[in-house]
């Protein structure tokens, strides 16, 4: 399959690294000419698209020419991470896509490997979440929904992605901020934003939580009513108040990032950070952000490492509150 994928990519000019990543390690001083991008998810998903956008931006702005893609899908990255750590250790041109979802997945699955084993390179994008109700719902504002939830938590059902994922985490955080037990949330897990949307459009559930991009078109068409977004502040062109404005003191971004392999030298880490820095400042990446409706929340190397540590602590806490971690 790996070969077949290569043939497909060559055939359509998407390119393949002839070097297969076996670059001499003394080349780290000069700029990287090739990258191996490791996606711990199936082709087509959010992480894969992040990887493809990185490839497209670096290629268009002539920063890196050759790319090799590898996918290891499964369990929110819990399958791919050990594989990346095992096979890419010490390789300065390996870049793994990951994000907040992986933090929760590793905790819930009691994974033996940790994200802190990796070399942090950059936090790239973030997507805030949105709380919606069906068009016909009696709840007009977040306050209405919060009041209904406080009165009878069990009667308010929330549709979203898989248990322990970002949508569920936000539900737990909101419950806590509203003074309720996160375990009391009637959370209805769907395998993705699509089936959850269907449940909302069919009035099967009280409310729904998902990434803004998943629900935005239904909101624009008036089929779903957006009550609040989980961003830190109001967003340009989006007429929806934040949770904080409405008295629910919660802020959450579903962030996506890239990591280097464990055990690489500081110069190698710097080379990867430099590539990302140049990409983020280039026009092609900015165009990709706009097209995909992603918010650029770039955070380089060490600062991202510090942020990651804080996120792991925060998410572990909320998963414990939800009864999903010990």
């Amino acid at each position: 399959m790996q070969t077949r994928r290569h043939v497909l990519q060559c055939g359509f000019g998407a390119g393949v690294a002839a070097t297969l990543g076996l670059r001499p390690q003394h080349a780290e001083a000069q700029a990287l000419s090739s990258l191996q991008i490791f996606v711990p998810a199936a082709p087509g998903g959010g992480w894969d698209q992040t990887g493809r956008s990185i490839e497209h931006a670096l290629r268009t702005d002539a920063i890196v020419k050759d790319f090799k893609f590898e996918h290891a899908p499964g369990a929110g990255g819990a399958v791919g991470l050990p594989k990346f750590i095992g096979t890419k250790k010490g390789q300065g041109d390996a870049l793994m896509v990951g994000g907040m979802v992986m933090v929760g997945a590793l905790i819930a699955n009691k994974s033996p490997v940790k994200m802190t084993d990796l070399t942090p390179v950059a936090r790239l994008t973030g997507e805030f979440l949105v709380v919606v109700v069906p068009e016909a719902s009696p709840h007009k504002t977040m306050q209405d929904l919060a009041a209904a939830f406080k009165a009878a938590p069990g009667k308010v059902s929330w549709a979203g992605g898989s248990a322990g994922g970002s949508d569920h985490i936000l539900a737990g955080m909101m419950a806590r901020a509203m003074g309720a037990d996160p375990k009391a949330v009637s959370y209805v897990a769907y395998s993705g934003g699509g089936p959850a949307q269907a449940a909302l459009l069919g009035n099967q559930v009280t409310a729904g939580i998902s990434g803004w991009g998943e629900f935005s078109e239904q909101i624009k068409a008036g089929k779903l009513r957006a009550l609040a977004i989980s961003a830190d502040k109001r967003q340009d062109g989006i007429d929806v108040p934040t949770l904080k404005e409405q008295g629910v003191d919660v802020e959450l971004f579903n962030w996506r990032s890239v990591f280097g392999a464990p055990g690489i030298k500081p110069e190698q880490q710097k080379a990867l950070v430099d590539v990302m820095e140049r990409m983020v400042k280039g026009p092609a990446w900015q165009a990709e952000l706009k097209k995909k409706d992603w918010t650029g929340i770039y955070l380089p190397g060490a600062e991202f490492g510090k942020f990651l540590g804080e996120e792991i602590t925060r998410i572990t806490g909320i998963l414990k509150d939800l009864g999903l971690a010990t």
Partner: protein
Amino acid sequence: MDTLSQLIAGFAVALTPYNLMWCFVGVTVGTAIGVLPGLGPALTIALLLPLTYKVDATAAFILFAGIYYGAMYGGSTTSILLNTPGESATIVTAMEGNKMARRGRAGAALATAAIGSFVAGTIGTIGLTFLAEPVVNFALRFGPAEYFSLMIVAFVTVSAVLGTSAVRGITALAIGIFLGLIGIDLQTGQPRFTFGVTELLDGLNVIVVAVGLFAVGEALHLAAQKKRPDGGEVIEVKDSVWMSREDWSRSWKPWLRGSLIGFPIGAMPAGGAEVPTFLSYFVEKRLAKKPEEFGHGAIEGVAGPEAANNASAAGVLVPMLALGLPTSATAAIMLSAFQSYGINPGPLLLQQQSALVWGLIASLYIGNIMLLVLNLPLIALWVKMLRIPEPLLYGGILVFATIGTYGISQSWIDLLLLYLMGGMGFLMRRFDFPTAPVIIGMILGPLAEQEFRRAMTISEGNLMIFVQKPLSLALLLIAVLALVGPKVWGMVRRG
């Protein structure tokens, strides 16, 4: 503009030589990947996503739709010839189709599958053109309670594949339900029966299990038989390669019934392509003039499920194009391709991108015709494959199944699973257990469980939700009727 004139405008888009070429490439690639077990349309389209940086949106979607429809055609070929389903939607086809092939009637089986796919694909596409709005509104009325009741109806279909002993059949079903439980539980995020193996976290791949049980199990069974004729037995191709007059008269009704079952269920957000094939098989067995032929190669058992699976493929596109709802893996990937063009698929897609959408729909009609033209002449070629002596043929099947399985995830765990299932399939054949209920249990078990628990969360644990909702109640009554109806009717007639 009314629907018809928009459709005509769509044909104007789809019939340009450039777009026709993409359509042809799509159906050809689709047929090829449908034949391979493992590589499905969702993965293929995902691998081709970088193409969206190079070609325009209309051409890309015509290509993707061609792949999607093509895979539904191709999947049946290996099911019938080699008992190796290429897609989960063609697992049912293998049950009767392969028996027909073993009786020397592979040509007729392939022909009824191809023509049935064409008829159903066209009916489904007509439904997509004219009925998208009402169908999607009906489908959205299905919530967790209704889906659970629908799964109960689908479980009744197991009775059609139980074989001679109900105990053995239900044992097989229970094994399947157990296999379906392996992996992370969606409602709590906790792993079940994974024993610390990370590759098991996402559950077992139903294709690997089906190929192991059917194809590998069969090969082992054959190898274990004492009688070993010199040079091996060759399956004689009896009668003509083509469908006889009787085949036609036995096929056309199942085609239509399969389409009517497949299209609306495919349009349901959690409907999928497998459930309608089970239901169609059950209906055909119940309505057949010669039900005793089922299990030995009844043509109705190929015609109906094949039609159901292709009609459901058109059904899946209904919520996608009418509401921007991705209800299957393939639809989700296609929607992410829309985003590559800066098009945000949603309820306004049809209004904002009408040229693109109607071009796509028109290309589905054209793709269906291309697939028929492409597949019918191939039948004569495929049938020749069965002239290969059995030991060699089954050796080849083992190689083919192994490569295809490894292709899914490049994981040796999947290969281990394939041969474990093969061993189990061999033992089940040896001790006369039916294998089909394992697959039915594996597909329906987790669906029923998730919907049941969703319904329980929403109703706060009140079981009455299943009878309080009228649609759910109606489905439960249908299940009861399908199970005991024939017996009661028989007693009444006997007086």
